[in-house]
């Protein structure tokens, strides 16, 4: 594993080295020291690399990630794994606003809490939060899954499309057009697969979760509303 000390190596050089891995199949791995809250650490990787960051990072860590595994042994600022395409971004601490926003695929695992707008406009990523999520999480989420082991804040799932939301704790309030839905066997199976993939064992029982989804009243075109267009 290569050691990169961001006190010595300019961040742009490190990110460029990660971008230069694109198209190569060898699995490079890096241990990153002294991130000190820097922005866009390990963003835009498109290779099966492994990056482990020792400390807290700033905005957009692991954003646009393809294939790579990015682990943060600390907390993350705004926009963690924003627009993730594939691979895994795993934060051992907390994440600030808009974690996993607009993701298309891959998995985001947050061991602590995520603040507001977690999974906003999700388009296909799997986001697993072991703590709580803040207000407006899963806002306008179109696809993918959001799993919350703790509680969810206000206006959860507001203006939701077809993302699936699972919450073990309490939901402070549901947003417009977000409703609780029946937890069928196929949903329990999906949830179990997601938990397994995130390394969460059978001590977390899928039957403790509630499922939320779109009531599909807001985003459907209705002929009755024609005059509003």
């Amino acid at each position: 594993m290569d050691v990169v000390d961001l006190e010595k190596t300019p961040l742009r050089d490190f990110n460029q080295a990660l971008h230069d891995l694109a198209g190569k199949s060898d699995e490079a791995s890096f241990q990153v020291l002294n991130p000190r809250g820097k922005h866009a650490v390990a963003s835009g990787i498109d290779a099966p690399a492994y990056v482990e960051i020792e400390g807290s990072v700033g905005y957009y860590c692991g954003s646009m990630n393809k294939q790579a595994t990015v682990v943060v042994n600390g907390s993350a600022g705004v926009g963690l794994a924003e627009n993730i395409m594939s691979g895994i971004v795993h934060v051992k601490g907390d994440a600030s606003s808009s974690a996993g926003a607009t993701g298309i695929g891959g998995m985001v695992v947050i061991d602590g809490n995520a603040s507001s707008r977690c999974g906003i406009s999700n388009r296909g990523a799997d986001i697993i939060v072991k703590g709580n999520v803040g207000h407006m999480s899963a806002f306008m989420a179109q696809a993918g899954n959001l799993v919350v082991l703790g509680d969810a804040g206000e206006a959860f799932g507001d203006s939701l499309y077809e993302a699936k939301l699972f919450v073990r704790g309490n939901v402070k309030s549901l947003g417009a057009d977000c409703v609780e839905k029946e937890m069928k066997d196929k949903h329990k199976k999906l949830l179990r697969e997601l938990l397994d993939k995130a390394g969460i064992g059978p001590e977390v029982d899928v039957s403790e979760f509630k499922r939320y989804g779109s009531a599909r009243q807001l985003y459907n075109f209705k002929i009755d509303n024609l005059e509003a267009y």
Partner: protein
Amino acid sequence: MCGIVGLFLKDKALEPELGGMMAGMLSTMCDRGPDSAGFAVYGAGDEGRVKLTLRARKPDFDLGKLAETVSHQIESHIAFTDHGNHAVLVVAADKADEARAAITALGGDDVQVFSSGTRIEIYKEIGRPNTVADRFHLENMSGSHGIGHTRMATESAVNAAGAHPFSTGMDQCLVHNGSLSNYAGLRRQLQRKGMTFQTQNDTEVASVYLTWRMQQGASLGEALESSLEDLDGFYTFVVGTENGFGVLRDPIACKPAVMAETDDYVAFGSEYRALAGLPGVDKAKVWEPEPATVYFWERH
């Protein structure tokens, strides 16, 4: 954008380090607000004395001479400390109002009074925040708590008076990241209640609002709570009082905030970068303040 840093020391032994810690924090926030900066430091103070921090708007204006004239006029000693185009005047508390009136009468538009209080001093200037910190030797200042701000102006002109912190009451100060949308109307309401304003700035309206609420008998916590009802817009506020340090974010909480607490201090930063250099931050409790929640620390 704008950047905020704040530091409240729990361990008195760290007080000589306050300015040095704050200078490091403020410098990391340069790129969030490169046009101007300011900081408030709550240092030593005596009951029965009031400190006034003044800024001369013209480089050749002699603040020392002004202090001497004011001293003669109010027939009371004024201790004067020169800080370049700023100065701190220490005057007997029962003469403070008289002194302030004399400063305004004699100095006119050439002099700005940035703060008054037992312990507060405020320094504000245009230019890059690290340059502003160096210019006033923030790194050498000591105190129990302090608040700094790096400004990227939106709602009013870039000048020293429009930089933060704003102080509109004794030992009070406020810094703000965000923009208020109902400030013009609120300013008119507050003016009708007899409150006065020095600038066209939205943050000053928030500061005067809190001062007015506290004049009505509210505690700082209550004043902050009521601002959730009466202020419209985006804000992360950090406020200081003689012995306290508070934080409030609007209910949407678009403007960033991160805090760190150890046995020795409570620190605020717009980004974690501002906190990364603090001693023991690796072991600190680090968290993001909740929206629409008043946080307040007070030393006893």
